[in-house]
């Protein structure tokens, strides 16, 4: 069987499962559409949250981010998991107790202000839309590489599948497909990792292999540090960036993760408050299976790549371009891997040509610049081929990448469509809308959101790569502080909350635009994006944590200067704080 046939079989097979689930889970009420009827088992919800949370970025990009940088990018590992601690202890149980369908609905009620609800809707739509673009482009890339169809066809097939289970099943359909997608993606991620860990370290558990010894007895990380230094790169385990930005970036990812609406709404689907607490723990268990494997995959893939290029060691000559492995030839076709024979010797010299201390040594070896450029996103997808694993493993990874992107896209699309049908249509325009009309409106909003996301996936705005900073920065600076104050403070009032959100939003967006270009249009940045121009040396990607602090400060200051919230709101806060009396999520 050819590799193409394997890929086709695995991808269509996984799609068939998603479609069967779509037929089996149709939402009959708004409660089922928005919260799956509130009866999801906490472990099942934990698994669905894992797939909801782990996006194309976690599955495809994260190991590459760690592989090519090393220790300094541990920020992603800590940031994208640490947020669940905040979510579990500060938000999820209380929002579950309150028992509403959407995040803006809570903000609107708690701050007794339709305007606060509208500001929250705006923040939610900006965050979720920027996030969904990356998922859609990820689907397109995976399809074009593994099924050799063009980007457009692949993306439209993916969107059609999401359409079936998300439009008809709502949260109910999305929940059970996400469970299936979690299973597909975790197998796809760990199976090749186990093979590679066995090849390199004789240990079947990649997370142990990372700190284990290679077959010649040297610890894996010692060997990796040595070969990357030999080629002029900075050491893998060393700390090379500034500590302040590492701390702030980690905090921004943590706070941002806890403030992402599509993750928060997953906790509205469990029956009780105590289930919401446990469910967050289960979610992190399922997420950790991938997140503990990712740094091992990164380190092992980097070592494998260098050993492929320098089979007799970094002190000897690299391989000839003509005898390069097949996976390199395939990825060259996509343009994500490029060879440029700068010194014309037909060999692939790969090293850090930006390192001035290394330049003399490289020149002495007759090297004239690094000749290979590797896009870090191909690492996980190419990994099984680099390690020469069986064809079915390659196909499994293809299906896993698509599952990761689709499951996150569906969660985001639900957050967007429920904000439109429940918060805008029912909340602001027609509060007396009948339930079956609202359900229809939710379905139409979902269909429109899928169409827009598909369009944006096909024509990604130039800023697609920058949007992660924006989505997390905004979630950290707007949604998280407002929700937290809504629960933990009886003093913060509507004016305070709205001022906090607006100032947090404007501050974060403006700070990012000043260095990254206004609306991400390149060349329009007001200051060069270099450390000496940053305010107090804080990078624009790390600014979300500062935005959060500003939101808290402004909201408190303004609230203290104005009247406290009415008594019935204070009573509402009291009731949110204790679990007794939590029913299923209510329809207003």
């Amino acid at each position: 069987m050819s590799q193409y046939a394997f890929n086709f079989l695995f991808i269509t097979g996984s799609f068939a499962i998603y479609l069967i689930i779509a037929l089996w889970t149709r939402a009959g009420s708004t409660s089922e559409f928005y919260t799956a009827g509130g009866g999801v088992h906490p472990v099942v919800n934990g698994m669905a949250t894992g797939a909801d949370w782990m996006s194309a970025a976690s599955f495809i990009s994260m190991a590459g981010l760690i592989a090519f940088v090393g220790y300094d990018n541990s920020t992603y590992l800590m940031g994208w998991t640490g947020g669940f601690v905040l979510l579990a202890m500060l938000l999820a149980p209380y929002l579950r107790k309150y028992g509403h369908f959407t995040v803006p609905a809570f903000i609107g009620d708690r701050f007794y202000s339709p305007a606060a609800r509208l500001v929250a809707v705006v923040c939610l739509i900006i965050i979720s839309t920027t996030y969904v673009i990356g998922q859609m482009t990820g689907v397109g890339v995976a399809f074009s590489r593994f099924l050799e169809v063009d980007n457009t066809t692949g993306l439209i097939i993916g969107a059609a599948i999401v359409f079936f289970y998300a439009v008809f099943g709502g949260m109910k359909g999305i929940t059970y497909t996400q469970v299936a997608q979690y299973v597909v993606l975790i197998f796809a991620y760990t199976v090749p990792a186990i093979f590679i860990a066995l090849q390199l370290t004789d240990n079947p558990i990649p997370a142990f292999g990372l700190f284990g010894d290679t077959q010649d007895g040297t610890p894996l990380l010692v060997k990796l540090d040595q070969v990357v230094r030999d080629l002029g790169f900075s050491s893998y385990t060393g700390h090379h960036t500034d500590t302040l930005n590492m701390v702030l970036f980690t905090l921004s990812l943590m706070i941002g993760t806890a403030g992402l609406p599509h993750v928060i709404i997953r906790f509205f689907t469990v029956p009780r408050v105590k289930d919401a607490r446990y469910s967050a723990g289960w979610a992190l268990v399922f997420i950790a299976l991938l997140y503990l494997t990712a740094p091992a995959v990164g380190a092992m893939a980097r070592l494998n790549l260098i050993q492929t290029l320098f089979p007799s060691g970094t002190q000897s000559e690299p391989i000839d371009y003509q005898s390069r492995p097949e996976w390199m030839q395939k990825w060259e076709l996509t343009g994500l891997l490029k060879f440029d024979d700068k010194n014309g010797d037909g060999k692939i010299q790969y090293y850090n040509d930006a390192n001035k201390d290394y330049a003399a040594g490289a020149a002495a070896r007759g090297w004239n610049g690094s000749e290979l450029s590797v896009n870090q996103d191909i690492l996980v997808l190419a990994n099984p081929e680099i390690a020469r694993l069986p064809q079915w493993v390659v196909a499994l990874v293809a299906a896993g990448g698509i599952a990761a992107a689709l499951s996150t896209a569906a969660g985001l699309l639900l957050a967007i469509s429920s904000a439109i049908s429940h918060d805008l249509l029912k909340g602001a325009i027609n509060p007396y809308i009948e339930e079956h009309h609202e359900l229809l409106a939710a379905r139409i909003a979902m269909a429109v959101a899928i169409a827009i996301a598909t369009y944006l996936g096909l024509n990604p705005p130039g800023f697609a790569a920058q949007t992660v900073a924006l989505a997390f920065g905004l979630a950290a600076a707007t949604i998280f502080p407002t929700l937290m104050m809504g629960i933990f403070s009886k003093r913060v009032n509507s004016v305070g909350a709205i001022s906090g959100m607006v100032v947090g939003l404007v501050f974060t967006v403006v700070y990012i635009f000043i260095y990254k270009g206004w609306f991400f249009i390149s060349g329009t940045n007001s200051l060069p994006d270099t450390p000496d121009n940053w305010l107090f040396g804080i990078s624009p990607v790390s600014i979300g944590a500062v935005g959060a602090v500003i939101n808290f400060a402004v909201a408190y200051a303004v609230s203290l200067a104005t009247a406290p919230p009415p008594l019935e709101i204070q009573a509402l806060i009291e009731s949110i704080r204790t679990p007794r009396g939590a029913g299923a999520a209510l329809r207003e």
Partner: protein
Amino acid sequence: MVVQNDTAARGAPVAVDSTNEERAKKYWRANMQLVAVLLVIWALVSIGCGIILRPLLSGIQVGGTDLGFWFAQQGSIITFIIEIFVYAWRMNRLDHLYEFDEL
């Protein structure tokens, strides 16, 4: 009988005599203490041991590198999981002790 066993195993409610408002206050205070302790640990393992305190831990070797690297790439994640389950377990107990558990 079943109820008695259940009470014996999980501890009797401590605040049966106090008013609803007082119970709510005590419950909230106990909750805040628990969360404060867990958040300190949360920051200590990640921002602390994983980043700022790494130079101090550089003497402790772990599999080819130092303890700070391990905390940054594995230790913090494992601690986070334990923390959430401890939180869920302790809070569910507090709910019961202060009679705020779901009926």
